[in-house]
């Protein structure tokens, strides 16, 4: 029996409608409770949060922190590790790396910044073992990984044949086999073409051999997602990413899923919340900044964020994460092989590329975003525009698409820009003039409140990915993950931007499952996190039929069928979320 009390903090808990009210938070055995007995209170760890900001632990719903491409980034960038070093302490490992830190350093750095839950945004099935190995070694954080399906041979084949049930059966089996949490779709149909040095340019352009279009894949995978009833919606990395004028294809892609009703069929106990903790969206657009470009070439490049935001403001079934660009060194890494090649041709930087057999691809490139660069300055502006021009914060999530647009340790700087127009104006003055000339950011007066910050860094990422049954809020039964910032909401000075960033970067306390893990940037406890994955089911007959197809094509793989699954031992503290339980699934027979 262990208990923790966070006393007198100004609590920001949007899913429970709590906006800066002075409250005590009680945690017993890792869960938030309404009260503690007198005896429990006497033995409890007490944190005095008087005059301080208290939020649920941070949730990052889109980050690249585990797996083969992250490790490729580490291997090809020794210069990234040379000056960014964390020395070991009595309880922590040493580590290094700035844009692509070692797994240990990642865990510590996230926790020291007040984050307790981080999801890896792209796990190729064949690299699932590697991804789980790295997650297993990441300290403190609760994690999970989305699996890449948008160019998978089986998915493309079934969707081309119009056999959505078999596609669902395949996805369900793959998620159980590789312990994946959600469906990621990267440049649908395009990455398969990349095997032939080509890409797709339009939503209705069929790809080579499979002759399936991006539209068919997006619609098909979104339908599969809701047929199975996964906790999170389809997570989409749109076509034509990183190219001028791509906001239109991004908008058109988001229209494809309209009308699909979100259904979460996970069997879970939901912690208490005042607002609905269930997702509303049927599509979650990844790193909107990279998909919100205007113009027709890099010469007349400009922001397309106002247009993209205009569409999202009209609909209720879309959530985006921003993929902001806070300047400085980055390592771009994505399953979008052709997009990375275009970036290589543009910059001439170090580049690596991988073809993942029947499943997907990937590219990695080192890059530094410069304030002196006209294009980078506009990218900075677009990243903030997508957050500020979409009116409802429940449609946005703040990320840098770590380490693509920037590094997760730059989140405090990002928050400062979102909360302070002065901070944006100060930076714009240091940038190339395109920053304000080629975007609408200069005319945006909106300054996000601490309540809104709690939405875009906690409540909404948790709700969007279906983790709000326990994360992203402090309702009764929620995980005892809490961040205490040394910020007095009553005395918030948005003009002292340096101090605000520093206080956000080093919370007074990060509490995970009721236990203090970080104190003013110092790691004080290293518990093991949980690994979440979904176990969706379809009917046995359907699965059997699908598996015979899989076994037939397995001859094209370089691994044997028996060696394909990720064994349980690769997961530390696994939490399997049952979805669409077999009994219910019996109803889902073919046609």
């Amino acid at each position, binding site marked *: 029996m262990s208990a923790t009390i966070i006393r007198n903090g100004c609590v920001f808990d949007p899913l429970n409608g709590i906006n800066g009210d002075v409250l005590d938070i009680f945690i017993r055995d890792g869960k938030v409770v309404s009260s503690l007995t007198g005896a429990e209170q006497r033995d409890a760890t007490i944190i005095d949060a008087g005059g301080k900001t208290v939020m649920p632990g941070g949730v990052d719903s889109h980050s690249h922190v585990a797996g083969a491409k992250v490790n490729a980034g580490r291997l090809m960038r*020794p*210069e990234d590790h*040379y000056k960014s070093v964390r020395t070991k302490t009595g309880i922590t490992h040493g580590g290094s790396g700035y844009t692509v830190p070692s797994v240990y350093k990642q865990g510590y750095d996230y926790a020291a910044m007040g984050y307790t839950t981080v999801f890896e945004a792209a796990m190729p099935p064949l690299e699932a073992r590697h991804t789980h190995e790295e997650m297993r070694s990441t300290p403190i954080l609760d994690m999970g990984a989305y699996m890449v399906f948008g160019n998978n041979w089986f998915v493309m084949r079934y969707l081309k044949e119009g056999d959505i049930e078999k596609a669902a059966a395949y996805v369900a089996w793959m998620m159980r086999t590789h312990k994946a949490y959600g469906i990621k779709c990267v440049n649908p149909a395009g990455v398969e073409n990349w095997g032939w040095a080509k890409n797709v340019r339009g939503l209705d352009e069929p790809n080579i051999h499979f002759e399936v279009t991006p539209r068919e894949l997006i619609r098909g995978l979104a339908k599969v997602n809701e047929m199975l009833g996964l906790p999170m919606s389809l997570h989409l990395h749109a076509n034509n990413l990183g190219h001028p004028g791509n906001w239109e294809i991004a908008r058109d892609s988001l229209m494809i899923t309209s009308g699909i009703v979100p259904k979460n069929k996970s069997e879970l106990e939901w912690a208490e919340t005042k607002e609905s903790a269930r997702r509303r969206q049927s599509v979650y657009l990844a790193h909107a900044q990279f998909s919100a470009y205007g113009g027709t070439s890099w010469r007349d490049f400009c922001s397309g964020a106002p247009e993209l935001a205009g569409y999202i403001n009209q609909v209720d079934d879309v959530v985006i994460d921003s993929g902001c660009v806070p300047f400085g060194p980055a390592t771009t890494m994505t399953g979008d092989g052709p997009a990375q090649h275009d970036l290589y041709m543009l910059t001439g930087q*170090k580049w690596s590329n991988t073809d993942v057999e029947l499943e997907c691809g990937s590219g990695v490139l080192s890059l530094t975003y410069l304030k002196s660069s006209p294009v980078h300055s506009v990218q900075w502006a677009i990243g903030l525009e997508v957050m500020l021009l979409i009116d409802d914060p429940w449609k946005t999530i703040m990320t840098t698409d770590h380490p693509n647009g920037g590094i997760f340790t730059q989140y405090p700087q990002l928050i400062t820009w979102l909360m302070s127009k002065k901070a944006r104006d100060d930076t714009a003055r240091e940038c190339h003039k395109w920053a304000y000339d080629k975007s609408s950011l200069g005319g945006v007066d909106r300054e996000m409140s601490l309540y809104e910050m709690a939405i875009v860094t906690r409540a909404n990422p948790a709700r969007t990915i279906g983790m709000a049954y326990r994360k992203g809020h402090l309702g009764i039964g929620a995980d005892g993950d809490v961040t205490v910032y040394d910020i007095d909401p009553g005395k918030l000075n948005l003009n002292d931007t340096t101090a605000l960033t520093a206080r956000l970067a080093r919370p007074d306390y990060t509490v995970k499952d009721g236990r203090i893990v970080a104190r003013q940037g110092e790691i004080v406890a290293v518990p093991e996190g949980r690994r979440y994955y979904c176990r969706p089911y379809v009917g046995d007959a359907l699965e059997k039929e699908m598996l015979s197809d899989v076994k037939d094509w397995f001859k094209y793989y370089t691994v044997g069928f028996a060696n394909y699954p990720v064994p349980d031992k690769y997961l530390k503290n696994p939490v399997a979320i049952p979805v669409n339980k077999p009994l219910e699934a019996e109803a889902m027979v073919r046609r």
Partner: protein
Amino acid sequence: MAEILLRPKGSIGIMVEAEVISPNIFAGKNKAEIEGLLVWQGPVQLPLGEFFDVDVRSAAGLPERARPEETSILIEGDISRVKRIGQGMKAGWIEIHGCAGMHLGAEMAGGSILVQGNAGSWAGMGMLGGLLHIAGSAGDHIGSAYRGSWRGMTGGTIQIDGNARSQLGGGLVGGKIVVAGNVENFCGIRQSGGLILVKGSAVRGTGAEMNGGTIAVCGAIKQFTPGFVETGREENPKLGDVQLEGWYAKFTGDYALGKNPKGSLYCREG
């Protein structure tokens, strides 16, 4: 003025990482303070006094008052197992009567270092300014970028009276490197600016992936880099403030890197 004399106490086992040996750090410190500065040896931190006898002399006034530019460090003895001496120094003077270890003067921005003996690899890595003079020979990666980086030395001067080994001036962006003797492989790889002058010969890969700046080789190049194209010949070319004598063939490259490379390679004729 303050002069600090360091004498190694004995032979050093595991190499010592002594970036604290720098005028910027020694300036204004007394003997005890200097002896107490911590250096890494493998996994442990030890005081500098474990490895060196320290003697502080002051020409006028108290050494505590000396600024970095008034601080000289004199090291007497073989310190080829001491790394990072003068790393990041901005002013002052270091003179080593003996051989120096790796990373000597790495990222130095000002001041001077003179080594009477040889210097290990990575001397002057990513140098920003100042003078690094190696009277003996030097190892690999002198004045180059750190592994994986394509931006190396940006300013200052490195002078080597003996030979240097491979990857001299890798990723050179600015500044000048002069080698009186020979170099080995990939001298000036990925160079984008600055000047490398080799008075002796080179082996192979000279100027590979070069995109700017100038290399001049007065001796022979054993295996010429294939991506270079001859653009003419010049008599007594003047490269920055360096005046060469005799006839030189001028090449442009490296066309292996791109369509319009701006690197110049001068080779002395016959």
